[in-house]
């Protein structure tokens, strides 16, 4: 197979794309769209892709073929042989290499003029300065944890006075035959934290069923995982990627299944239940990745209305029974702990002020009016009125100065008050 693109095919490759992005259509917004400038603007745009797995491979390829020229990709994983059935940028020789690097090189070889910068790291290894350089972020992740992290980071980066601080987040996700694509404009439209309830929680089995009346092979495996492991502790800590550990669980589950006359416990089922694996399907990934990249193209070019601007922001797809998609507006949550509750500036006289003075002042300040405040900083409990034991432990802090408590200019504190039970107020200390 050749990876060379014939030079003469280059203009042809972009012909249809240019028809879409350089000419207005019936849905283009004339205020946003200027066909003559789109191609140049997209070329100078920096776009970040998070994840180079099932969705990420598709997203990278699609973005490169949509006219984006400067792409960064983050993925901390290396290629496993089991990825090859759906992560089409990887070959058998690549097993063990960085996903981000192999994917970047592959797409660069195939699409002339595109530059992809790989980062074989965790998203948490980068700070806001790094994320600030991008105009768009596209996520193809398999973990809720990582989504919540990048969401909170992008929401926190918003500075109302700086237009460039709003980084649209396009998030794709798949699970078996189902998937979703959504667009989040931080602090403007509903965020990932607002939409947490859209993730179906893992169906947990009652502990007593596992302990006394298992009915299915999964119950036996969960029993080995949750109960037998803790009782016998065959290894210091469970490593779900260690075949020896999984084998131990498999043997335990098998013995229990025989005791209760249950069929179907296998090694691969054990692995699946313990690691909570849901089979990934290549076709679902390509549908969702395509939807995400369409949104990226629409946002970047203004050629058509995109999701989330401002109404419908969530497209769900289900291939379980024939094909079904539904696009709707997920509402923002006013009390969302991430986007509904952004820190406000709190001017204070300086580091020599005591915590007691600061808390007392919260009662009088028009922006706070909190008469019974409890306060915490990152990793530091300053003063909590309840529960009783915590009050006793933190009472000595009241007479310490902010400097003694390690509080600095620009630091965030979270204040709760029984009068406002539903919210925790976030303040950013500003020393005068």
């Amino acid at each position, binding site marked *: 197979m050749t990876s060379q693109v014939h030079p003469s095919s280059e203009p042809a490759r972009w012909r249809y794309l240019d028809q879409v992005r350089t000419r207005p259509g019936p849905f283009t917004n004339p205020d*946003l769209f200027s066909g003559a400038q*789109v191609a140049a*603007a*997209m070329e100078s*745009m920096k776009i970040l892709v998070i994840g180079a797995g099932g969705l990420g491979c598709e997203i990278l390829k699609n973005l490169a073929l949509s006219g984006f020229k400067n792409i960064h990709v983050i993925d901390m994983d290396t290629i496993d042989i089991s990825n090859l059935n759906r992560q089409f940028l990887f070959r058998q020789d690549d097993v063990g290499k960085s996903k981000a690097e192999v994917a970047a090189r592959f797409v660069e070889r195939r699409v002339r003029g595109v530059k992809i910068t790989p980062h074989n790291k965790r998203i948490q290894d980068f*700070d806001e*300065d790094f994320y600030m350089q991008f*105009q768009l972020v596209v996520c193809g992740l398999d973990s*809720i*944890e990582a989504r919540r992290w990048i969401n*909170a980071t992008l929401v926190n980066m918003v500075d109302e006075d700086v*237009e*460039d601080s*709003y980084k649209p987040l396009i998030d794709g996700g798949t699970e078996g035959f189902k998937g979703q694509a959504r667009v989040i*404009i931080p602090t*403007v439209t509903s965020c990932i*934290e607002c939409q*947490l*309830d859209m993730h179906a929680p893992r169906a*947990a*089995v*009652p*502990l007593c069923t596992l*302990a*006394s009346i298992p009915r299915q092979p999964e119950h036996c495996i969960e029993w080995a995982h*949750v*109960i037998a492991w*803790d*009782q016998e502790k065959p290894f210091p800590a469970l490593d779900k990627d260690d075949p020896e550990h999984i084998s131990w669980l498999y043997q335990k589950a098998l013995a229990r299944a025989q005791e209760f006359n249950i069929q179907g416990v296998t090694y691969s089922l054990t692995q699946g239940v313990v690691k909570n694996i849901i089979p990934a399907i290549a076709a679902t990934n390509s549908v969702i990745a395509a939807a995400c990249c369409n949104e990226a193209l629409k946002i*970047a*070019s*203004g050629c058509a209305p995109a999701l989330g*601007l401002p109404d419908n922001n969530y497209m769900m797809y289900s291939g379980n029974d024939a094909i079904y998609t539904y696009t709707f507006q997920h509402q923002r949550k006013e009390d969302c*702990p991430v986007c509904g*509750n952004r820190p406000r500036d709190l001017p204070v006289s300086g580091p020599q002020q005591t915590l007691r003075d600061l808390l007392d002042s919260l009662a009088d300040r028009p922006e706070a009016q909190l008469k019974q405040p409890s306060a*915490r*900083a*990152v*990793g*530091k*409990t300053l003063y*909590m009125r309840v*529960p*009783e*034991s*915590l009050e006793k*432990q*933190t009472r000595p802090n009241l007479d310490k100065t902010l400097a003694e408590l390690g509080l600095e200019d*620009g*630091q*965030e*504190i*979270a204040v*709760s*008050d*029984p009068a406002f*039970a539903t*919210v*925790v107020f*976030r303040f950013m200390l500003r020393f005068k």
Partner: protein
Amino acid sequence: MLKIWSMKKEQQKAENAAEGTTAAAPKKKKVTAAQLRVQKDLSELSLGNTMSTEFPDPDDILSFILYIEPDEGMYKGGRFSFTFNIPTSFPHEPPKVQCREKIYHPNIDLEGKVCLNILREDWKPVLNLNAVIVGLQFLFLEPNASDPLNKEAAEDLRNTREMFKRNVRTAMAGGTVRGETYHKVLV
């Protein structure tokens, strides 16, 4: 917003940066969503006379110990403690709760695992720490024989309530029931 032309501003900024005008913003650490939620839940906690907490490290509010001293029911006179470990994914995931003593109770096994629906299959992010501690308290008022984790205790409760009551007293005093020696929890 979202005009791609805003990248012009980007260029202007780059020009400013070239002149050395942009100061590096100080790195701000943020309070995580789980911590915010736990702070809120703690300030709403109603412990009453029968419960109290202990924080081994007051700066880490994600792990603490809850003491329950039931003032009625079969477990009256005992003092039971539970470790609470709250994952950073809270409230998407429930807190991890474990009884620290070996006790004779149909819904708590000998390792301290608790069978309480809202700690596992029925957990929802709208529930809070108060709901969990009310649930734990309820287990001591109304032990439930139909969800057994300690099968012997559940059997005893189902068959003869009187004997179950006696066994509870024996076990709470640090005695042996059906060959199993329990921790002394009487205060």
